[in-house]
């Protein structure tokens, strides 16, 4: 009952976090990766020692490759970001990086994406976002079609959607910070992470709403707010534990897993964490708030 009693505090925390995330999105912006914008990324590792970055920078200035961004990676490597490269330009880039053969290197990864492929992926991502959101909303409406007293079923759906937006917004806000301070780029996996959060975090909310549904049927509790409070007391542990096991494997993926899925794992971890928070401290308290307004 503690949560329901102090519901306004918890709802305020969520509102503040979401507002901060939106602010961060507008202030820092999101660095869009070459998946969507087009461009090339070349990762090289030098055999002996890597040349000084400023030497390479000046060497690239005299070339006609557009803006070339060089970042050190690992002990002996550089990651080079540029506009998308054709074969001749790619060879020229490698030649410049190896200082005309003086610093032998191995190319570990090369990715050049033309602008039209980027546009195609952007379109796909937008369609996927729209469809997943619609699918989840329809699913929620379906899952709660039978509960209607004293709060009608579409309001359960609405609260679930509100908490979903909260669950996705905060990790995106965190990602803008990563993007600003560590140069993380929003790529395909970023979109996948956002969409997976939609799918995963709604399940938590459903576990608790399911319990409210059951308790309403069995007429546990004198008032609606008491029923919700009891349901929360009964189910918050399992909600935390089901998320905890997923967070455990996600953290393992972040700390030990492949480089390419690190930010992905981190974003999903944030999504799971705030997803659990929202299903306990946001969705159900909101439901009670709505019922109280109804009575007035």
């Amino acid at each position, binding site marked *: 009952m503690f949560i329901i009693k102090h519901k306004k505090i918890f709802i305020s925390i969520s509102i503040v976090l979401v507002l901060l995330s939106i602010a961060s999105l507008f202030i820092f912006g999101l660095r869009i990766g070459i998946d969507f914008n087009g461009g090339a990324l070349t*990762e090289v590792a030098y055999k002996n020692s890597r040349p000084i970055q400023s030497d390479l920078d000046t060497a690239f200035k005299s070339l006609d490759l557009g803006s070339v961004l060089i970042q050190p990676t690992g002990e002996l490597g550089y990651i080079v970001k540029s506009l*998308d490269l*054709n*074969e001749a330009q*790619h060879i020229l880039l490698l030649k410049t990086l190896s200082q005309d053969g003086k610093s032998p290197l191995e*190319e*570990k*990864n*090369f*990715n*050049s*994406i*033309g602008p*039209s*492929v980027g546009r*195609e992926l952007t*379109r*796909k991502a937008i369609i*996927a976002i729209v*469809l*997943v959101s619609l*699918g*989840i909303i329809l*699913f929620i409406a379906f*899952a709660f079609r039978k509960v209607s007293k004293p709060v009608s079923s579409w309001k359960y759906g609405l609260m679930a959607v509100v908490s979903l937006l909260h669950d996705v917004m905060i990790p995106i806000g965190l990602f803008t910070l990563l993007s600003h301070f560590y140069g993380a780029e929003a790529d*395909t*996996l970023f979109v*996948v992470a956002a*969409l*997976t959060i*939609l*799918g*995963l975090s*709604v*399940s938590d909310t*459903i*576990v608790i709403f*399911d*319990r409210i549904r059951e308790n309403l049927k069995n007429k546990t509790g004198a008032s609606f707010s008491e029923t919700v409070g009891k349901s929360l007391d009964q189910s918050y*542990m*399992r909600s935390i*534990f*089901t998320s905890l*096991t*997923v*967070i*455990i*494997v*996600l953290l*393992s*993926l972040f*700390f*030990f*897993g*492949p*480089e*390419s*899925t690190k930010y*992905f794992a981190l974003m*999903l971890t944030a999504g799971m964490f705030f997803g659990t928070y929202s299903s306990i401290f946001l969705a159900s308290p909101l439901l009670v708030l709505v019922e109280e307004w109804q009575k007035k």
Partner: protein
Amino acid sequence: MWRKAVSILIVLILGGAVVFFVFKSEPKLNPNFQAESSFFKNFPFRLGLDLSGGSHLIYKADVSGVKAGDVSVSMDALRDVIERRVNLFGVSEPIVQVQSSGFVSGAEEKLIVDLPGVTDVEKATAMIGQTPLLEFKTEAPAGTPQKATVSKDGKVTLDAGPQFVSTELTGRYLQKATLEFDQTTREPKVSLQFDDTGTKLFAQITKDNVGKMVAIYLDGAPISTPVVREEIPNGQAVISGNFTPTEGKQLVGRLNSGALPVPISLLSRQTIGATLGSDAVTAGVKAAIIGFLIVALFLILWYRLPGLIAVLALCIYITIMLALFKLFPVTLTAAGIAGFIISIGIAVDANILIFERLKEELHTGRTVSEAVDAGFHRAWSSIRDSNLSTIISAIILFWFGTSLIKGFALTLGMGVLVSMFSAIMISRIFLSGLILVGEGKVARFLFSSGISK
């Protein structure tokens, strides 16, 4: 009684068989892998390019010259030709696929080529670029303006392009090319034999153009512009240009491996070095093992006996998934492995929901066996609902995704489906069997959880 014991035995035997299969078919686990029968050798894990290293190329096909209805036929022909070309160079398990234009994928017809093990992108594109584009063009109607350009040093070049117009006849309809030598001049020439459709087209073209020139274009440049003397009904044409016997021989080889039915241009290239890929595999396996161990530890410490059973069910779940990856086969990418690792965390969700319910039922004073039944029965609706939303996301992601997203959506979606089976069916069979431990204090302790007594 007996039935319960038998079901437990059956699950254990089946689980063991899956473990046996995964172990036997995995060279890294099985020291005698070389000596195994071919059955086990046929099911390796299939690794995506980002893990095995290799090149991923996306080409745009220019189908502006193809009639709308023939586009998909041309694209299929294009795929076959590129596939033959790639196979000619001995790349193992290349994947060549057409991505048709559409609402989702955009207006362009694309060809996607995956070349495992080829990390030299210049070599890779050269391999494909060498495929010749053979076209037959006829004289443009009189009055078509000709483009002349004057270069800086005053040389005038006449652009032959507009002078000729494309016909439907292309290298697509070529059956065979052979190198021959002219009997009188000893000059090398390449003779072409068209297939049935090509023969008809060529007959029509020659019939309509008697006394005019028919230009043979190779890779966009005219190589021979003979004048047609009469209709040629037998589908045979000869290219006699200024080439050496070696050049002629090369040309024949290229033509026979297939000419491109439509021109292509490279849109994007990706090459992943082999070391980067194997590093990612090692890291992925490590993350999976560590994640699994911590989850297992948590389950056993918190849920005691049911937790131990959940871990057993989780082990069976993991081996079933690994076996499915091998059998389907599922192409594993870094994102796919991530999806699988996440599914390990989700797989035990159903168990947690059941066990929490079980604990609650025990508190209301039911016997252990009643509580187990009620726990499974009452937790079902929330298990079903909470997994459905993940499945919905996975299906949509799979439908719309690029290969990277597909790998993730597939392993995650499969994982959720399989885990509903393993967490509910398998752990139920085990738990209802273990009720045999009785109703004493020890049994109640074993079935309780958390820090409660």
